[in-house]
């Protein structure tokens, strides 16, 4: 399983990345939506397509919502699960993100178990992950 962690905070990228690595994911990072799209394109050329993108909302250059819209507009990324991981948590914002094409939404602060629950629900947990 592969994941792309998209967050302008290096701390957050490290935290999310380490949770995902513990769950058996191969993790790459991007610091904003633009970098993420570039990473997807570059990755695609070498056969690296993520199963999951964890996406922060507020980022410079291109924010998470814009990234979700752009990713969903590309049929080549149809199989990629898009999960917002953000502190933005007004009902209207969650609705907006889901409407833009995000598949799931994890609100900060979150625990490793909460991330795990979401991934299990999405069928993304690799087999045989120890409890």
């Amino acid at each position, binding site marked *: 399983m592969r994941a792309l962690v998209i967050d302008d905070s290096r701390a957050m990228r490290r935290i999310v990345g380490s949770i995902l690595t513990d769950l058996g994911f191969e993790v790459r990072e991007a610091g904003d939506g633009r970098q993420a799209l570039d990473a997807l394109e570059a990755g695609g050329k070498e056969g690296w397509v993520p199963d999951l993108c964890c996406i922060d909302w507020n980022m410079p250059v291109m924010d998470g919502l814009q990234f979700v819209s752009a990713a969903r507009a590309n049929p080549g990324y149809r199989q990629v699960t898009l999960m917002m991981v953000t502190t933005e948590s007004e009902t209207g914002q*969650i609705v907006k993100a889901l409407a833009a094409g995000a598949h*799931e939404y*994890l609100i900060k602060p979150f625990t490793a178990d909460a991330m795990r629950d979401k991934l299990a629900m999405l069928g993304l947990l690799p087999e045989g992950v120890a409890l």
Partner: protein
Amino acid sequence: MTLTATSFDWVRQLVHRESAIVLQPGKEYLVEARLLPMAQQRGLAGVSELVEAVRTRPDPASTRRIVEALTTNETSWFRDGDPFMALTGTVLPQLLAARGPNERLNIWSAASSSGQEPYTIAMLLSDAMPDAPNRVSITATDLSREMVERTRAGRFSQLEINRGLPAPMLVRHFTRAGNGWEISPTLRKMVHASECNLAVPFPRMGPFDVVYLRNVLIYFDLATKQAILQRVRQIMRPDGWLFLGAAETTLGVDDNWERVVVGRGSAYRPRKGN
């Protein structure tokens, strides 16, 4: 720090056995913090004294309270998935076919804790049936008054709603309440919460079409488990469905149930001819 290594170890094993949650070494402070109120309530000097008391003379209520205190915020929605997917996938169509058009469907969540289970059921049925609020009644019981009140309130923290609740369901069925979230009034009306001690004869309830008795039998000895299962069967419809915890079974406990494979899990139905 009053907690001894032996006490911590006993608690750690108890919690893992009853909830699969792992308390790593280093979490002694958490056990200390979460159990101190319980120790103080009993007039004990500290958490180690509480643990000693419960360890030497275990009773289901105390062990349950200890596990609950340490697993707050850890309860998830749609726990284990299958028993809830089975509700809409398999059980509901059969029930609707077997019951009259105006007959109420009665569901019992028999260890409802802070309410995630009964409201998971309410959300699923409400999404599957437009007339669910009128047709479905969900009885939610728990040993603890505090838990019953929590279920009645239908309010959950940010951390709690992050646990296995699909985001589309969150926005569909909850509204913001301060920093937390509150279940919609429609769904709240579907759930009737009350106290119930499973180990003694039940108050008048049922008959139920579906019973969720999940991860609570483990607190009881064999004789009590058998008594509980018998009492449950007596207030179930003959064609009803019983869901136990993922690692639980009636096998070796009570012969009066037939195990049925549903999806990737199991359900138990009263054995015919009894």
